[in-house]
């Protein structure tokens, strides 16, 4: 085992107007050939910065200000642009997070491969073509010769990531830096790509650095792991040792925050070390007594509808929707995608119901159908006993719809950046005329912001001043403003770090308990579903495979596909407790 990469006391600084930010401080790492090193940490920890610093692709204004990077015994710092170019691709390859954007959309993948091969080796065009085919085959792409002529958009996400890996391998590098290589992929594809990377590492005797925020990925693929927190490496060691018996406080709280698939806990472990302000989701909140608090009172509109407490919160029957992929005059020439295929389920009031599946399984479309954002081709949707597909101006339909609110996945694009938080949260209150005057509206907004752990002072600020987790709290406050009884949460935490995810999920749980909310919780993440939901429906290709209580599904899945999904779940056996 020879030492491939040695980083000693590396400092990376970003010079900004407000002074210098140390993105990496005194970082030391070693990678040997044939070894996978995991670099784990949350966003802003500086893990990508280290990957970029190694191949000298730091985005301006970042710069390496101290320490040394020795690659195969050669100092990389101080090399000029030309020398670095010969190292990039030839000796160090890089894989990026999103295969959708890391390939040039206008060039055939053959052109991109051949171009990269020709740059690194002195061979002719036809030989380069041949070696491109071999490369594609080695990353598991079948019919490689024909595929050379394809454009990136003709590949699925997982296949594209294979192409990206082939490109990174084109120059026969000795070290691969993979920056979140599976974050944008489905869990089954993730497993394949991780297998591929690990296989290549062993067969070609490569050194691999995997940068990720996902402890599950680390547990599956890495030999050793380095944990980063705010630019520092707090702990390094064998995976089993670090995950099973973490020494540092940060590592401990990070691992505790990871949702467990093997057992259900009442709450996610508190992760106060991570943001240093304490667990806002419990400590900072006053409890709400639903019987006296305004959130429990029904609004005028809701009172007009006679809502029995026995009816299901949501009941859908034989819901179907097809999207047109390609229009044509003749019906038989049209290509349709059956996004939702005869879906039926009922959610009892106060229940937390999970919808799980891979991307493209139609789970978000079901949510949108229920919320009225799409119109179904056939089937029925009832909210608290009221059919809501009829005349949308009917006061009964309106009242039923008022009971339902949605929280979206991306906290960045789901808030209007030009509005103040006050106006964002007040919008439903004003729309439904649920307050007597402006002063009362403000009072309600402050109240809501207090409940979601942001504090009333947030009202006068704009969304861009908040972090992803805080924005998701604003979304929750907005959803609660119209006093709904049902919340649809469409992947509410998949854009968030694991510690923030734990806080948001705790908040949702608390609100559910206090307000007696019904939750329709959509996620691709099985452990999260297990922690959040009472019952689960597994979706695939628009249809429901299995509906079971969460405990039953995780202990004895009936359907083949559910079993498959559970098997693919990153294994966390190494984590103790």
């Amino acid at each position, binding site marked *: 085992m020879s030492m491939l990469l040695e980083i000693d006391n590396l400092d990376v600084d970003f010079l900004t107007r407000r002074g210098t930010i140390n993105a990496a401080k005194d970082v030391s790492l070693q990678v040997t050939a044939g070894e996978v090193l995991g670099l784990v940490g949350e966003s802003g920890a500086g893990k990508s910065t280290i990957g970029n610093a190694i191949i000298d692709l730091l985005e301006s204004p970042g710069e390496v200000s101290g320490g040394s990077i020795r690659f195969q015994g050669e100092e990389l710092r101080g090399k000029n642009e030309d020398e670095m*170019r010969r190292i*990039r691709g*030839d000796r160090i390859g*890089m894989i990026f997070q999103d295969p959708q954007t890391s390939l040039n*959309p*206008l060039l055939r993948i053959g052109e991109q491969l051949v171009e990269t091969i020709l*740059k690194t080796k002195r061979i002719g065009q036809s030989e380069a073509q041949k070696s491109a085919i071999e490369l594609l085959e080695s990353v598991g792409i079948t019919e490689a010769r024909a595929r050379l002529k394809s454009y990136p958009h003709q590949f699925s996400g997982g296949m594209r990531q294979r192409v990206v890996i082939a490109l990174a391998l084109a120059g026969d590098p000795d070290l691969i830096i993979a920056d979140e290589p599976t974050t944008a992929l489905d869990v089954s594809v993730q497993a394949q790509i991780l297998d591929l990377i690990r296989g290549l590492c062993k067969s070609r005797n490569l050194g691999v650095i995997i940068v990720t925020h996902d402890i599950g990925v680390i547990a599956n693929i890495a030999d050793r792991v380095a944990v980063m927190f705010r630019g520092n490496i707090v702990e390094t060691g064998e995976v089993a040792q670090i995950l099973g018996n973490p020494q540092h406080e940060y590592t401990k709280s990070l691992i505790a925050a990871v949702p467990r698939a093997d057992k259900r806990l009442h709450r996610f472990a508190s992760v106060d070390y991570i943001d240093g302000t304490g667990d806002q989701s419990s400590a900072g909140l006053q409890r709400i007594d639903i019987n006296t608090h305004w959130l429990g009172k029904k609004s005028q509109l809701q009172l007009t509808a006679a809502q029995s407490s026995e009816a299901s919160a949501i009941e859908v029957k034989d819901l179907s929707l097809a999207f047109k992929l*390609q229009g044509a005059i003749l019906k038989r020439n049209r290509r349709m995608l059956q996004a939702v295929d005869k879906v039926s389920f009922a959610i009892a009031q106060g229940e937390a119901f999970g919808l799980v599946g891979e991307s493209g399984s139609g789970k978000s479309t079901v949510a949108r159908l229920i919320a009225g954002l799409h119109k179904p081709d056939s089937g029925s949707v009832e909210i608290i006993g009221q059919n809501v597909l009829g005349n949308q101006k009917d006061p009964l339909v309106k009242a039923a719809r008022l009971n339902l609110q949605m929280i979206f996945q991306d906290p960045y694009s789901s808030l209007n950046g030009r509005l103040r938080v006050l106006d964002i949260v007040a919008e439903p209150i004003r729309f439904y005329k649920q307050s007597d005057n402006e002063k009362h509206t403000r009072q309600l907004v402050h109240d809501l912001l207090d409940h979601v752990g942001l504090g009333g002072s947030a009202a006068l600020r704009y969304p861009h001043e908040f972090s992803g987790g805080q924005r998701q709290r604003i979304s929750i406050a907005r959803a609660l403003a119209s006093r709904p009884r049902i919340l649809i949460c469409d992947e509410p935490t998949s854009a968030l770090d694991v510690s923030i995810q734990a806080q948001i999920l705790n908040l949702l749980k608390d609100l559910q308990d206090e307000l007696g909310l019904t939750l329709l919780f959509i996620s691709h993440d099985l452990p999260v579903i297990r922690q959040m939901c009472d019952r689960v429906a597994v979706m695939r290709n628009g249809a429901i495979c299995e509906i079971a209580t969460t405990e039953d599904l995780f202990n004895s899945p009936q359907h083949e596909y559910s079993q498959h999904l559970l098997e693919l779940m990153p294994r966390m056996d190494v984590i103790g407790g």
Partner: protein
Amino acid sequence: MLSFILRRLGQSVLVMAAVSLISFSLFNFVGDPVNNMVGQEATREDRVFIRQELGLDDPIPVQYFRFLGNALQGDFGLSYRIKRPVNELIKERLPATLELVLVSAVIALVFGIAAGVYTGIRRNGWFSKFILSGSLVGVSLPTFIIGIGLIYLFAVTLRWLPSSGRAGVVELGWWKTSFLSVDGWRSIILPAITLSLFQLTMILRLVRSEMLEVMQTDYIKFARARGLSERAINFVHALKNTLVPVITIIGLNIGGLIAFSVITETVFQWPGTGLMFIQAVDFADVPIMAAYLCFVALVFVIVNLVVDLLYVLIDPRIRIAGR
């Protein structure tokens, strides 16, 4: 793909039908054609005779379809003023305009794209800043002022180039070209630069902003990480991606070049269709105006059709979607 082309062709036919209707209506709304044609001393009988000869007594739909039928065969009737067939007049004038537009389009494209790429890559260089502030002149000054300025500098003061007209024309069959003699080139260069300046600026700024955007994308970063040379990154990976929106704008602009050549041709007394049009407007010479309108519309329609096809050729994603 075929259905895409057919649909586009169908749309083009609709546009042309609408334009022909508008040009036809010129005949009925811009004065009485008979009054324009005959002199003061014509008798009432003469007028009635001409009116019948020209078919002006027929119902309007009949007149329109006759106009359309003739127009499809390239016959726009006689010019009221010169008393010669309009299509002959256009055929005589067209080479001058097309050559002028061609030269200025080439100038705008070559310098616009080159300067756009340069300023996009060397974002903070002093030369980029110089080009960018200089390009503001191109957008902010009206064409005729630039033309007059150029004439004053190069023709009046320095006496390097002729101030106006189209000298040194060589005949190739019916096509008269400026490209085969030194005098021809000398006389085309000033009007071509004048005409191109606005388009050049637009292309420059568009290419630059697209370039800046593309350089931020992941695939450029990934190309860097594979160690590709700067040249391959800038000219293969980045430039091709900037061209997609640029081509749309260029297509619209080439139509614009022909339409706006009116002003440049007037300033430089360039004997093209634009100058002919202005003279026709002066004399209310309706057949020429109508024909010119149809002609410009046809150019726009054809250029846009070509642009759409080019778009499909450059961006494979559109090919699959088939729109």
